Every structure is written in structure tokens, then in C-alpha cells.
């Protein structure tokens, strides 16, 4: 009884995480993170990720403030924010966020405020999207663990 539930949850988890990779939300760096999670730090991934999301929301707030004035945008400051975000997203394997950051940075470089605003919206959207997806994923993980199962290793290649 319990084993079937676990098996079902595990399969669900596997499918879900594979879909996240396939839809481009995540890349192999996320697998790296998962490899780092062990008995010593059982919640490593979720800790890093939540730190990342906090970071995102803070940076996005700062950036949207600096983009508020139409004529007086501090692109240097904006650029450092984008750089931070790009580094973070690349570190956790948030692929879509990272990709938006790349075009964001290009817009920054040419001081295109319109483009920056567009990218900012995209980044905001992407990170929130990823956040809900990963929350679902972590919930699934919790359910598996509560049901007495283990988190399956997922090979993404």
C-alpha cells in the first residue's frame, strides 16, 4: 500500500523534474546543486533556491526603482544588479532567468530603457514561475519523504 504510493509519488517527481528540464526552467547546474545535497545538509537545494528567490525579489525591486525615472537611469547600477542576478541564476541553474538576464545585460549595455523594462518584467515573471514550480517540486519531495520513500536520482541527459 505504502510502497505503491511511494512509487507513484516517485514517478510523479521524476516526471515533474524532467519536465522542468525539458521546458528549459532548469539546466545541469541544478543537478550540480542536487548532488551537493547530502545527509550533512539535507535541505541544501531548497535553502540555496530560497536564498536565490529572495535575492531575485530584492534585486528586481532595486532595479525597477532605478528604472522608474525615464530620463535619469543609472545604468551602471542597473548593470551590477543584472550581473548579480545573472551570476546567481547561473549558479542555481535557473536557465530561463539566466537567459533573460543575458538579454537584459545587452539592453543595459546599450542603455535601452525600454528593453530593460521589458527584460525586468520577464525576469520577474520567470523567477516567480520558477518559484511556484520548485515549490511544487519540494512539496513532492516532502510527500515522498513523509511516505517513507527516498528521493529518486534523476539523470538528465
Amino acid at each position, binding site marked *: 500500500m505504502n510502497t505503491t504510493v511511494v512509487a507513484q509519488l516517485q514517478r510523479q517527481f521524476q516526471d515533474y523534474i524532467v519536465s522542468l528540464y525539458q521546458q528549459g526552467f532548469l539546466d*545541469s*547546474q541544478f543537478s*550540480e*546543486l542536487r*548532488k*551537493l545535497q*547530502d545527509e*550533512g*545538509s539535507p535541505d*541544501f537545494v531548497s*535553502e*540555496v533556491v530560497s*536564498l*536565490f528567490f529572495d*535575492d531575485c525579489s530584492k534585486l528586481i525591486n532595486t532595479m525597477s526603482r532605478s528604472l522608474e525615472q525615464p530620463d535619469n537611469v543609472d545604468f551602471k547600477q542597473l548593470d*551590477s544588479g543584472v*550581473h*548579480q542576478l*545573472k*551570476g*546567481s541564476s*547561473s*549558479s*542555481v*541553474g535557473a536557465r530561463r532567468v539566466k537567459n533573460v538576464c543575458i538579454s537584459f*545585460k545587452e539592453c543595459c549595455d546599450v542603455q535601452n530603457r525600454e528593453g530593460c523594462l521589458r527584460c525586468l518584467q520577464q525576469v520577474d515573471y520567470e523567477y516567480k514561475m520558477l518559484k511556484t514550480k520548485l515549490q511544487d517540486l519540494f512539496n513532492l519531495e516532502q510527500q515522498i519523504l513523509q511516505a517513507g520513500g527516498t528521493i529518486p536520482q534523476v539523470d538528465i541527459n
Partner: protein
Amino acid sequence: MVCEMETDQIEEMDVEVLSSMWPEDVGTEADKQFNVEKPAGDLDTLKEVTIETRTIADMTRLPNLLNSTHQGSSQLTNLVKQWEYMQDNAVRLLKEELKNLDRQREEAEAKELKIIEEYKFESNEPENVPVLDETSDLFRRFRQKKRDALVDSKKIEIYEEFDTVAYWKQKALSLEKMLEASTERERRLMEKLSESLKTMESQSAPVQELTQNLKRAEGFLHFILQNAPIVMGHQDKDLRYLFIYNKYPSLREQDILGKTDVEIFHGGGVKESEDFKREVLEKGKASKREITFTTDLFGSKTFLIYVEPVYNKAGEKIGINYMGMEVTDQVVKREKMAKLREDNAVRKAMESELNKTIHITEETMRAKQMLATMSHEIRSPLSGVVGMAEILSTTKLDKEQRQLLNVMISSGDLVLQLINDILDLSKVESGVMRLEATKFRPREVVKHVLQTAAASLKKSLTLEGNIADDVPIEVVGDVLRIRQILTNLISNAIKFTHEGNVGIKLQVISEPSFVRDNALNADTEEHEQNGLTETSVWICCDVWDTGIGIPENALPCLFKKYMQASADHARKYGGTGLGLAICKQLVELMGGQLTVTSRVSEGSTFTFILPYKVGRSDDYSDDQDEFSDMADQQSEPDDTAEGYFQFKPLLGSIYSNGGPGISNDFLPHKVMLTSPIKLINGFVADPSNNTGQSEMLQLENGGYMDESKLETSSGHCPESAHQYENGNGRCFSKESESCSSSQASSEGGTLEMESELTVSSHREEEKAETEVKETSKPKILLVEDNKINIMVAKSMMKQLGHTMDIANNGVEAITAINSSSYDLVLMDVCMPVLDGLKATRLIRSYEETGNWNAAIEAGVDISTSENEQVCMRPTNRLPIIAMTANTLAESSEECYANGMDSFISKPVTLQKLRECLQQYLH
């Protein structure tokens, strides 16, 4: 038949006929309006038409003209024909009438006869015989047949049968009456006949007829032409008007007739039209032309003019007919259309050109970006390959394996060099290349470059540096790029010089003309901005050699990408063909100019002139001569103003004493193209075994020699690779001294051999430096500002069994390094406060000078407690690994240039970290 008879008459008449075409009154009263009489009964429409006269004709000459020309006679012939036709018609009608009359007469005669016969019949037959209508015809026929035969007998019979007087009287009376009626009829017929003959006679007068016709024709012409904007005329051989028809007559007859165009009009186009007419007259060929007149008389108007020559019957030209139609509006419209069309075409062409340009630009940009990205992507794995190969080369290998490995390494290095060049170029071209202004000493740079070149010199060349006295001790410029240019040019010079000298000469020159010419205003502005403390100085730098030289025809393409003087040279000397292109671009980026003069087999001189800012010249104490530690008999350590250096091939100590930190700074690898076959051949002839060591020593130099040393050292070192490398490291310092002597002897004899066998020695030196720490746990410093990156990296380190300290920016890193000693630094490139590149430079400066003066000057707050660490610090080079994002602005090239040892591209993964630690922690 009639007309034939009358042709002569017509010929005589046509003068009169034609003159009627231009009635007398028309000619003399040119301006008079008149009503044309109805020309013919069927042309009622013309009844009311009023026609102005616009014709002016020379009445005396026109008839002659018409008579004497083909046109005139053909017109006459036409008229004659028409007249003949009408005469024919009239004759035909008369004949018909005559026939009718004949028939009537016949009928009358027949009737008469009948009456007579009736009468005879009556007299022949008894009275009571009834004459039946039905049978009378038959009977008459019968009677007619017999008539002739019966005539005589009949008369007799009459006489015989009728004898009463009354009856005869009666008979005679009635006959008389009948006869009378018959004659009466005959007379009438005769009258009619003569009448019709009379009318015929009256119609047959051709003069009036033709006059009518002509009037009608003229009426037609007037009717059609009355509103046409047409001018017609005839001019004689001298182009004098004999006749003109003009819709808008504004000149009187005497103003026109007998005069030429030029005499009548003045203004634009008149001459042209006259010339045209004359041309037609001469060529004898009718033609058309459009001519625009601008005359006082009728303003600016365009006429389409048709001119045809007129010949007389003898075929001689006697003048021209011309006809002009005003087409001003059409011409204007047409021109407008043409202009519109032209504009349209131009716009379209421009548009397509623009599109093409945009497309090309986009393509080029994309291609360049692609090239840069690909180069970057290729470089990472390639550096792995080369790195591993180099590690492999420090292990125990037999000679053949070593040769192969060396080829592998040098080929890898070549590709790396190429990729670095490409990245450099694309950076310059895309404008990403940033120039930095740092203070530096030109003498030191020159010395340094020469020293480095001498260190890897495989030929017996003398390297000279010559700096004029007026060159400032210290100038401001991008020293890294200037070194890059110098190194590139020097290595080129050495490559193409087999014996003699190679040198660098520096001298101050006045502002070159190309700057003065095109940047007068921009430059003055710049000067003003820079204020009073700094002035510019132009320094001309010659890099000369006594080498093979460059043929004149190869000079133009010398600075082009991927170009070499010739394919032969490319094969013989190798290289990527990018070096000079980069030099040129860099020099131009810095606002200078790179030129070359050369003479085949005498040598080449590459000259670049660059502007430098001259700073305050009082504080060069903070930056000690970085070469002081390897200064030798030739230069005093503190002699910053020395202007001459020489590196002779036999001075062995120079080559081996070169500090590893310096050579690594800007010349990662000295690369030569090697061919494996040659290589192996070279060694087949070699006694390649342990016993042949001494010979090997004499043959190979620097980098290569460690093999033999290694083999000796392997005798007392354990076989494991790890310790093996340690052994290598320890041995190296001893070896470097001993090699100088062997090198000296090897330089002369085995030039060719050595040029083929080139090994990058710096890396090994560097590794040799990295001695294993006695402490079991290596200390690692992570310099990174991104929390998440820190978290991830830390966790990875933990997995790899290491801990590390964290610094959040360059300043913190320097503070940390100052207070504690580390075995490895992982340095983010882009950080706030102080970025990784600058931090690394400051750390390197500290390593070389033993003090943090440079850092303090840069504004870093260092606790200046001169603790023993500074003294204790070995000259070891602290491995600093850059962590780069994959962008053009933070390329690994720049990392190397700033003194970093390697780089990891972000995001950091376990695998990358593990490799890095394996390479740098032992």
C-alpha cells in the same frame, strides 16, 4: 474618251486651279476674317463656321514652287484624276439618257408601224371580221413576217378593194391626225434631247468644278486645323519663309515672308531649329525633333517639329516643309513623370542598398560574435587539453612519447595563440577592447620585452634596446597593450632573422602630421580637459631587424588579417597571420600609427608612434624596478634612466634567470610550428637513450632539458606522478643554472633543430614553483560577491573535502592575503569596490616587490604592520584562478594578462573545481 481628249486643256488650266486654293483676297488681306461659302451642298455643318485666316503666302512664288516640285505635281495629278472621274461619270449618264431616248423613239416607231399595219389590216380584212385582242399579237407577228413580201400586192389589193371616195377621205383624215401626233412626239423628243445635250455642255466646264472641289478641300483643312496648335510652313533653300500657317498669327506678312527664323525670332531654340532645318536640308531625310524655344514673342514653349526636304521634279532640293506642334504641357508632364520615376528608382536603389548594408552589417556582427563565442568555447577545452598534456609531459616518458607530446603541446599552443588573437581582434573591432591608463616606464618595458625574447631565443642574435635620452622616465598608457605590440613585433623580428641584430629604438618625436591634420579641434579639447598636470608626448618606437626582409609587393597586405608575406613564408615560419593585424588595430585604437619599411634580405623596421600622457615624474619610488631581481652585469637595479640594453646570445645567465612571474605576464607561450616527421627524423639520428644524456644536454635547451634532469632525479624520487612533479620542481632551480653553460654551447650549432623543437617552458617553471605545502590542508580563499555563488561554491568545496575563506571583494581579498597565507585563490572577475583583475595585479605587485605600496596607492586600506610575513613570504607565486562569466569584457585573455594563472568559467561545477584543485593543489 472625253478626258483623254481634254488632258491638254487641263494642263493648261492648273495654274488657275491652284491659285484658287489661296484666293487672292486671302493673301492680300491676311488679317481679315471672312466667311467661307458653303463649299458643297452636302456640307451643311460648315455653313456657320467662321475661319480666321492664318495663312501667309508668297503668292508669286508658290505657284512656281508647286509646279516645280513633286508634291505640287502629284497634287495636281490628283485633282486631274478626280476631274476625269467626274467627266466619265457625266458621259456615262448622258449615254444612258441617249439610250433611253433611242428606246423611246423605237417604241414610237413601232407604234406608228402598228397603226399603219392596223390600218392595212383593216383594209385587207372584211369589216365584219372582229379584231380580237388576244389574237392581235399573233396576228401582227404573222403580218410582220410577211410584210415585206406582201407590200407590193397589198397596195394593189387596196386599190382593188376600196374604191369608195368617202371611205378614203375618212381614212386619209384619221391617218393624217395620227401622223401629226407622231411628229409632234418626235419633235418633243428631239427637244428633250437637245436640252439634255445642252445641260451636258454646261456641266462639262471643268474650271468651276475644280474650283468647287478645291474650296471644299480648303474648307476641310480649315475646319480641322482651326483649333490645332500647329504651325506649318515652307521655307526655301536659304530657309526663308515662303508660306506659313500659324494658329496664333502675331506677325504680319512682311515680317515673315522672305525671312529666316533667325531674322524673325530671337531667343533660345531659334538657332537650334534653324540648324536642324539646315541639317535636314543637307541630309535630305525627313526627321522630327523637339525644340524648346524661349523667345520674347511667345515665351518658353516646346515644339515638336517635323521637317522634310522638298525636291523639284529634277530631284534637286529646293527647300523644306516644316510642321510644328506645341507640346509644352506634354513635355512638362513627361519631365515630371520622368523625374518622379527617377526619384522613385533612386529611392528604391538607396533603400535596397541600405537594406543590403544593414544585412551585411548584421551578418558581420553576428559572424564576429559567433567567432568570438566559438573561440571562447574552444579555448576552454583546449586549455584543458594543453594543460593535461603539459602535466603528462612532466611524467616519465620515453623519448618518442616525449617528442609526440611536445608536438601536441606546441600545436595546442599554436591553436590557443590563434584563438587569443581572434578574440583580441574581435574585441578591438567590436569596440569592447578597453584601454587602461597606467603609469609605466618605457625603458623597463623595452628591457623586459627584450629580456623575455632573449629568454626564449633559439638563435645567435643580439637583441638591442636603445632609448633616447629625451624619452620620459615614466609615461601613462596602456602598458599591457603596448607590451603586447612590442612582444609581437619582436617575436616577428626574431622569427624572420637568422643572424645579426634585432632591436627596439625609442625616441620622442613632434606631433605627427596625421594627427595635426585631422584632429586639431578634438585634440585641443582633450588637452583642455586634461588640465595642467599632464601633457602629451609622442614616442616613436622602431622595432628593427637584419632579417630576410619583406618584398615590396607584400607590404600592402601585411597588416591584413590572416595574411602573410607569402605562402612559402607561412609554411616555413608558421604563425597565424593575425599578429600584425592585431598590432595595427591596437596602435590605431590608441590613436597612433603603425608603419613598416623593409628591404629584402637587409631587414625590416616596424615603426609605431603613439601618444602618451606624461605624469608627474617625481614618484617612481613606489614601484620598484620589477626586474631588479634579475638585473645582471648590464644594468644597475636602480638605474631607471638607462637608455641602452644589449642581450648577446652567449650570456646564458640571462635566459635562465628570467623570473617566472614576469614571463608569464604577457607572453604565455612561445610558439613555433613543428612538423612531427621532421622531429622524429631529428631524433632518429640522435643517440636516444640514457647513455646519450650528455649529448642531449648539448642539443636541447631550457625547457627541453628537464627531461634528462628528470631522469636523473627519478633515480631517487618515487615513481608516483605526484611526487615526481615535486622532484621536477626541486630539480629545476638547480638545473636552470647548469643549463646556461650547455645552452651557450648549443646555441650555435643546432639552430635548425631547435627551431623545430620548442617547448613552452613557463608553465613548467610555474608548476615547479608550486611546491607542496607541509600543512595537510591547503588554504583556499574564495573572492566572490554573490551570496548564492558563495553558497554553492562552498558546498562544492565541502564535497571535495576542503574548506575555504570568503572575501566579498578585491579589497577584502587583499586584506585576507596580507594577514594569512593561502595556497589558492578563486577570484571572481567582476566585483564591486575592487574587481578581480585589479586585485590580482596588486597581489602580483606585492609578490614582486614585497610591499603593498601599489595597493595602498590604489586606495586599499592595508594594515601596514610590517609583520614578519612579508619577509617570510617566499617568491612563490600564489595561484589565482579567475572565475569568469562568458562575456567578451571579461575574457580569460585578460585574466592571463593581469597575472591570473587559469580560469574557470561560470557557473562553477564540481568537475571544474576538482580539476582546478588537482592542478594547483598538491
